């Protein structure tokens, strides 16, 4: 494809830098793959070997269903945390202990789509205890414990379809929300089995409020508010003066149910829905809701037993805003708003109409006044609509094309991503003036400033998560890595520092100072505290137990052998469970376990942990197993044999680890 000529001015500086000053006219799409960097940026992102990054960056994996952790400013990938998808790297969703984590009312779901990362907060600031992320396709929310960097809990959201507007959090982690993207019919089978064309009559939306319990690292659904049938997109909680309120962007107020690309883009304005969640909480406490059908799974991984369990709940408390007043208000917002972001002061709410030519900024004070004065512009399906002019602080004029999301720094500036014009636009929240813009490569979606949706952003950087990669890296066939870009926001002008590849397709992300997390990181699990029912506490307890056609292998591993490593008496068709306990008590000494022909998977066992592989042998023979994680100079010797005899044979059960010299 022919590329238009770069409209840039090249200046060579005697001070030793090559500067490219872009033509930064509004709406100017970046027209080259070349990176616009000044000469000294490498020193700003170079973390010398053995040194640590300043920030952790928790990034959603998008269609991978996982969450990735990068160091900033280096952009180094530190970890892919498995959440909503099975992970062959560590057995997530394959080991018996982790399988319940992916259970839903639809059965076991091996692959979902994860979109938005939110940090647990104390006093409106990320506290480094948990990250949360939504499962979009099969509606769920996950809670990731930052001591272990593991998924501690996953809760399914009933009466929801496409959990996109999630999992945003209130300033003291009182609630996480889950707003349904698709409105659907809900209730009994008869109420749900309706023609699609009865959308207006039978479909409803819901926003669910989830209560995280930090004492147990679990979550439960406190209540759901039913809403008119629209599509909910994104959300953010109020803070400071607006604490107690939640704001959700919604589109498709046309209530279309086909060809939404056209049919849901008809109205000049859709809405930001303001929810008085303190009021909702009060109604729920007063028993003013109704328990309705809402079967959902609550899955929790308990590190004391190194195992997950599922609990199924049948009903959910619903609040109906048609009966319970003062819960919901609609604020008109131009053209299919996407991002819905609240500034650090809590006074301003930014709605990003992705098809709009302006960025409206709403005032919480004005909203309160309009509600008090009943300054309404009619209603939408029974919910009051506030007058646009009465709640508007002002509009950012011609910010760029396709505004999507906004993050904030601690100096009164906002950073908005422009998908269509492919740029980040910096603007003053009070004066609404655009003060800077930089191109991104290419087509930015979400963006992230450390603490950028909190009361006290740390600032320093903005990271662009771009939707299109094209020629930024060496080509790898039709499938390319995704591309993030790191910009410095320390000065008046944003400065591109680094491109770094990301896995899956990042949507929202969080960045927090490493100090909040790194010293609390678990190094290994204490073997004394291992309460796994099949743990083997020392080699002396290693054994094989037959219960009918089930064979339980209580196996230990330590550098560098398994006990037992010779097993006989297993028969074709037996259900063999390898419960492998890693006896190591030092940091970074996992052992692996792989059994030839096991169609399930392998195991990776952290020090002090027990993990279980289920295997049903299909054929007769002596089958090898070995350690898959290079553990010592004698790792290659870490292996064993298991003899499989025909079904019904009389080979006695036998197990041992033989030493050359039995000694004593």
């Amino acid at each position, binding site marked *: 494809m022919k590329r238009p000529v770069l409209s840039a001015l090249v200046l060579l500086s005697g001070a030793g830098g090559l500067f490219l000053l872009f033509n930064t006219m509004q709406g100017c799409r970046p027209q080259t793959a070349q990176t616009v960097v000044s000469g000294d940026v490498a020193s700003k992102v170079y973390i010398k070997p*053995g040194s640590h990054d300043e920030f952790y960056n928790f990034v959603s994996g998008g269609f991978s269903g996982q969450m990735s952790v990068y160091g900033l400013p280096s952009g180094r990938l530190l970890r892919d945390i498995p959440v909503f998808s099975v992970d062959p790297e560590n057995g997530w969703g394959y080991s018996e202990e982790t399988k319940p984590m992916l259970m839903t009312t639809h059965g076991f779901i091996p692959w979902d789509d994860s979109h938005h990362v939110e940090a647990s907060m104390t006093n409106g600031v990320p506290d480094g205890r948990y990250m949360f992320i939504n499962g979009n396709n099969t509606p769920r929310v996950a809670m990731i414990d930052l001591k272990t960097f593991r998924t501690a809990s996953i809760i399914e959201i009933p009466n929801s379809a496409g959990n996109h507007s999630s999992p945003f959090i209130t300033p003291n982690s009182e609630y996480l929300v889950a707003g349904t993207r698709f409105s659907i019919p809900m209730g009994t089978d008869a109420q749900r089995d309706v023609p699609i064309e009865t959308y207006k009559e039978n479909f409803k939306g819901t926003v669910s409020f989830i209560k995280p319990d930090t004492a147990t690292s679990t979550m439960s659904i406190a209540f759901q508010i039913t809403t008119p049938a629209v599509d909910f997109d994104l959300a953010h909680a109020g803070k400071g003066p607006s604490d107690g309120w939640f704001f959700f962007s919604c589109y498709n107020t046309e209530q279309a149910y086909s060809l939404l690309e056209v049919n849901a883009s008809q109205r000049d304005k859709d809405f930001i829905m303001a929810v008085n969640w303190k009021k909702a909480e009060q109604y729920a406490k007063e028993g003013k809701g109704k328990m309705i059908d809402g079967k959902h799974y609550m899955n929790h991984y308990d590190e004391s037993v190194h195992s997950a369990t599922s609990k199924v709940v049948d009903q959910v408390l619903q609040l109906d805003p048609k009966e319970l007043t003062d819960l919901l208000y609609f604020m008109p917002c131009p053209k299919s708003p996407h991002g819905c972001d609240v500034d650090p002061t809590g006074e301003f709410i930014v709605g990003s109409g992705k098809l709009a030519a302006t960025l409206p900024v709403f005032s919480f004070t004005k909203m309160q006044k309009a509600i008090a004065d009943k300054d309404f512009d009619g209603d939408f399906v029974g919910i009051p609509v506030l007058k646009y002019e009465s709640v508007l602080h002002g509009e950012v004029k011609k910010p760029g094309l396709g505004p999507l999301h906004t993050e904030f720094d601690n100096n009164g500036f906002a950073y908005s991503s422009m998908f269509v014009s492919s740029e980040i636009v910096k603007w003053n929240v009070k004066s609404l003036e655009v003060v800077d813009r930089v191109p991104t490569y290419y087509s930015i979606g979400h963006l992230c400033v450390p603490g950028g949706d909190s009361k006290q952003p740390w600032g320093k950087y903005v990271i662009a998560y771009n939707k299109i990669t094209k020629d930024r890296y060496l080509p790898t066939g039709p499938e390319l890595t995704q591309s993030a870009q790191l910009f410095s926001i320390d000065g008046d002008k944003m400065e591109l520092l680094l491109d770094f590849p990301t896995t899956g397709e990042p949507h929202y992300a969080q960045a927090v100072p490493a100090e909040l997390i790194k010293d609390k990181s678990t190094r*290994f699990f*204490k*073997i*004394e505290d291992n309460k796994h029912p099949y743990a083997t*506490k*020392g*080699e*002396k307890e290693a054994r094989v137990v037959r219960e009918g056609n089930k064979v339980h292998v209580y196996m*230990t591993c*330590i*550098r*560098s*052998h398994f*006990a037992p490593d010779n097993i006989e008496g297993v028969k074709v068709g037996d259900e063999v469970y390898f419960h492998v306990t890693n*006896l*190591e*008590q*030092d*940091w*970074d*000494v*996992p052992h692996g376990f792989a059994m030839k022909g096991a169609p399930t998977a392998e195991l990776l066992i952290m020090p002090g942990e027990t993990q279980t592989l289920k295997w049903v042998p299909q054929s007769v023979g002596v089958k090898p197993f070995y350690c898959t*994680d*290079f*553990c*010592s*100079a*004698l*790792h290659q010797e870490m292996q064993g044999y298991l003899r499989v005899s025909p079904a019904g044979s009389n080979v006695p059960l036998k197990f041992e680890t033989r*030493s*050359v*010299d*039995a*000694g*004593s």
Partner: protein
Amino acid sequence: MKTKITIGLAAATLTLAMASCGGANTDAPPGAKTPPPGAAATEAETKAPDNMITAADITLGDIDQTMASAGKGIYELKCQACHSVGTNRVVGPGWKGITERRKPEWIMNMMLNVDVMLDQDPEAQKMLEECLVRMPNQSLSKDDGRHVLEFMRTL
């Protein structure tokens, strides 16, 4: 040696640091100098020498059966996979008679400060050359170590 940087002279510190980076122990096998990933102690982890057990820290009297029995429990959980209570080597050496072969503080330091010992103690390094598996740090407390020592005395 990198944990001993209390010397004021930068040059002396540098020399020491270099020595610990492979300038010394040229006769050590490759396995000892470049332990496999995940097996080596990190700089931050290596305990400072002031945590080292000295002869003065240990009083040996008549065998205390309560301590020895606690030590046996720890042995079975954390040590038995590699050490027999006989004379034979499994992964590491058998423990029979070990308290006659080694000083009690040396034994305690192998249990509590194994990474420092493998970095600095010639006798420990000799054992590594023989066994080729770095003895794991099994996170024993000082009391745990003392109990295991008491158990060893019964062997």
